[in-house]
């Protein structure tokens, strides 16, 4: 649970858990956090907490509300934000554990029950029934671009054929997978992964040979200038300077 650490002149007064949806701050007695100081308005500000996000709103106070030194009307609180009301400071501390859990949870498959109202597609339009949790948390969660975007290893690599009729030819490894060899005889695949290039045996009785050593069924990481021998053809793997 998120909390506020209330202090005056750098001395901590108390910690206030944000354990309900609305926590009000003001001079009058009915506030959740009562601040008995004339610089503070009767109803000064409110913090609305929805799941793991807290929002601060100034309720039209006379002397205003500062967050990190700047006057605000409405503000989405980030952890370690310091709210100033009069001479009092409130440091906002989000719940770290809950934050982590929400990132993991939002990926989880959930059921959307009943007929889907078309209007519900707009985020925050409501009408989600059971799945409201989902729509609100996803708003602050970063959308992840799927698959291979920006996931390539930094360097481009290529294979140059050293022997046989195609000697001298160069094959750039532009795809995530590149197969080499003769189908039906011997085939290997070079996979491009975030941490490098790997060669794996695909078919044929013989396994590829790298730098004179035959591979087993496991993937083998390729280093610059490794020599691969496949179906009687030698080729060199090398990294390109882009």
């Amino acid at each position, binding site marked *: 649970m998120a909390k506020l650490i209330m202090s005056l002149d750098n001395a901590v007064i108390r910690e206030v858990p944000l354990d309900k949806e609305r926590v009000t701050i003001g001079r009058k007695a009915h506030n959740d956090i009562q601040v008995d100081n004339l610089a503070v308005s009767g109803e000064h500000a409110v913090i609305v907490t929805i799941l793991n996000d807290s929002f601060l709103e100034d309720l039209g106070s006379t002397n205003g509300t500062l967050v990190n030194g700047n006057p605000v009307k409405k503000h989405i609180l980030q952890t370690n934000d310091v709210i100033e009301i009069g001479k009092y400071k409130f440091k906002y501390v989000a719940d770290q554990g809950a934050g982590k859990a929400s990132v*993991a949870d*939002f*990926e*989880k*498959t*959930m*059921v*959307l*029950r009943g007929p*889907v109202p*078309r209007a519900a*597609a707009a*985020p925050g339009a409501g009408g989600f029934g059971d*799945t409201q949790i*989902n729509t609100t948390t*996803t708003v602050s*969660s970063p*959308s*992840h*671009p*799927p*698959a*291979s975007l920006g*996931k390539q290893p930094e360097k481009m690599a290529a294979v140059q054929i050293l022997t046989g009729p195609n000697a001298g030819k160069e094959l750039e490894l532009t*795809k*995530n*997978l590149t*197969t080499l060899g003769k*189908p039906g005889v011997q*085939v290997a*695949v070079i*996979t491009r*992964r*975030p941490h490098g290039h790997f060669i*794996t*045996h*695909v*078919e044929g009785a013989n396994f590829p040979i790298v730098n004179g050593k035959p591979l087993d069924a496991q993937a083998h990481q390729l280093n610059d200038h490794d020599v691969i021998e496949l179906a009687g053809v030698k080729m060199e793997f090398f990294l390109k300077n882009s």
Partner: protein
Amino acid sequence: MTTKLGAALEVVTATDPGMVRSHNEDSIAADRELGLAVLADGMGGYNAGEVASGIAVAMLTSEMREALAGTSANEADASGTPFAVTLIRDSAGKANAAIYQAAQSQPQYAGMGTTLVAALFYDNHVAIGHIGDSRLYRLRGDGFEQVTRDHSLLQEQIDSGMISKEQARYSQNKNLVTRAVGIDPEVETEVHTYEVEPGDIYLLCSDGLSDMVEDEDIHNTLSMLRTNLPLAAQQLIQLANDNGGRDNISVILVRVLGDYAVPSGWFARLKAWFG
């Protein structure tokens, strides 16, 4: 006859918890002799997701094993529907009832459910049933297509023209399914039948694969590694993990090696009986 079906199929299964989750809530099963592949992606707190997907897969496999011992999957009923279709529907219905009841009676399982995709091969055909966003793809020659259509909010948004497929890749609503097994007392299984051709490769997968790896990459992997299905399955999981592996990843690959028509006519049946 069933042995013939078994010999006509190559089946490879693989499942992985991914890079983020500690539990694997996916369940998979395949029975080559029955020509059956089942994959379920469970959801629900604690271990309820595993329980739901486990019930679904166990229920389907045992129901089908029992039913197929008595009746051939290709036998059509009065309306011409092959038994395979009825069987998938009925067993999914039973799995739904079992999960729903467990969820109702035990508080720790409240709200659990699962997606489901099942393929039953029979007589040169395949019956494919699905509920939710677990998918089946088919590679035939150079053509790669998604056979099932997700029961998901995203798919409905695409269908209604609200968002494009391109936008859908970045959508944050990927994980909202509109239909699942075990959530309501009844569930409707979408079942279709297709003819198969020798050489076809069928891929059943959970959204841990299809959300993390683009269709084009799945296609490339399958067509390049089509001669080595175990490696293809391993490679697909590796791709999903390299892209972040945010969810459990499960794949079942089924390759049709040859013809498996059920012999018809008395002579063919007699031959099959002796053969």
